[in-house]
């Protein structure tokens, strides 16, 4: 029954047997390039000469591949030769053990309130670095949207790619899995300062859950549930909150201007502790989640709504 009903099973069969060309497989409309051939004889001669050159290039393409392999081997030998003079792996006397590391690990828990030193490092000592990363993600989303957005007047091109939208098995499995994935993502987000994890990994898990949802239920349905307005509001609120909170923290962190921060590290080990690290983790996670989901929707549909 399933084999009869599903359109892509027949497509899959033809694909495995190799009857379809690449373009047919992907159902890409093969339009010829718009450039027309020149009609003047002199230029035709030039093109003929170029064709001969192309044929010669095809003959030398094997030599090209051989040369690139030789280049790869030489580069690898030079780099591996340098490794020979490096300090040994996992050695106690490597130059990485210096006073910055001792300060971060030794006093990080008491100063930032985070048990996970990496979270305390990237969201407290190096918080502006992480703010820059969030803005890199935001800028990448904007750039991809600018490059690939299709106008609203045109209907969306329905391409007959492999979709799992109407597959009953996939839909059932995703129905069961999506809540678990999202809860796990939220757990990773909220425990970033206590255990391995944090904003970036938790946000990626959340984004993966939403992408799975969009794949199984169809992009049209997903675009109605998670509208572009929601994505925009969440991203901009998270980024502005991060910006303002960390500006306050940096402004009051100076002991000489007489202003003291009202944010305290709290008791290390509690869920609500670590001062600004927990809210900043959540903000970063939301930005990463919205970015991943927007990338998927823009590349698949051409627009967010």
């Amino acid at each position: 029954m399933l084999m009869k009903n599903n359109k892509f099973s027949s497509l899959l069969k033809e694909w495995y047997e190799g009857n379809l060309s690449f373009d047919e497989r992907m159902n890409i409309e093969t339009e010829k390039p718009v450039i027309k051939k020149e009609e003047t004889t002199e230029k035709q001669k030039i093109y003929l000469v170029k064709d001969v050159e192309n044929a010669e290039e095809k003959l030398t393409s094997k030599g090209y591949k051989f040369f690139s392999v030789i280049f790869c081997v030489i580069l690898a030998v030079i780099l591996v030769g340098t490794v020979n003079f490096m300090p040994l792996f996992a050695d106690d006397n490597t130059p990485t053990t210096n006073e910055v590391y001792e300060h971060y690990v030794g006093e990080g828990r008491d100063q930032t309130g985070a048990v996970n030193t990496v979270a305390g490092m990237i969201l407290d000592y190096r918080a502006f670095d992480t703010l820059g990363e969030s803005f890199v993600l935001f800028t990448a989303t904007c750039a991809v949207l600018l490059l690939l957005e299709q106008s609203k007047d045109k209907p969306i091109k329905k391409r007959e790619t492999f979709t799992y939208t109407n597959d009953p098995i996939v839909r059932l499995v995703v129905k069961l899995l999506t809540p678990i994935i999202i809860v796990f993502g939220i757990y990773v987000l909220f425990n970033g300062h206590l255990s391995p994890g944090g904003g970036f990994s938790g946000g990626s898990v959340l984004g993966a859950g939403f992408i799975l949802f969009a794949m199984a239920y169809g992009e049209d349905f997903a675009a109605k549930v998670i509208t572009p307005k929601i994505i925009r509001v969440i991203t901009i609120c998270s980024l502005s909150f991060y910006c303002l909170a960390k500006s306050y923290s940096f402004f009051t962190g100076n002991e000489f201007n007489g202003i003291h921060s009202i944010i305290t590290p709290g008791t290390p080990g509690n869920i609500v502790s670590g001062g600004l690290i927990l809210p900043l983790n959540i903000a970063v996670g939301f930005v990463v989640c919205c970015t991943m989901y927007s990338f998927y929707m823009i590349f698949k549909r051409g627009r967010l709504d």
Partner: protein
Amino acid sequence: MNLLINYEAVTSMVLFAIGFTMLVFSKNIMKKILGLNIVDTGVYLFLASMGYIEGKLTPIVPVAGPVDALDYINPIPQGLVLTGIVVSVSFSALMLALTVRLYRKYRTLNLDKIYEMCRKEDEQE
């Protein structure tokens, strides 16, 4: 033999060489982007493994009590790798979007053919 002990550095260097060769010598734009991602992977492996010290713990300190920094590995390379991964993801997405635009116009991913078509267009004008 240093190379047998430094196996992670050797692996990352081999990855770097493969990715760099793909980036420079491949004519397909998709393969160039893949090559750049392999280069990134090699660099991340190298950086993250440099922070590891034999017999030391992950940098998640106990909730109470004094902390001796010498019991834990170096957390700084992990933070740097995190930055690198984010930049790599954004960069790949931007490059793939530009590739989609190029493919829509020229219907090929071969850089030589695209260059050839651009030159013909210039000659026509």
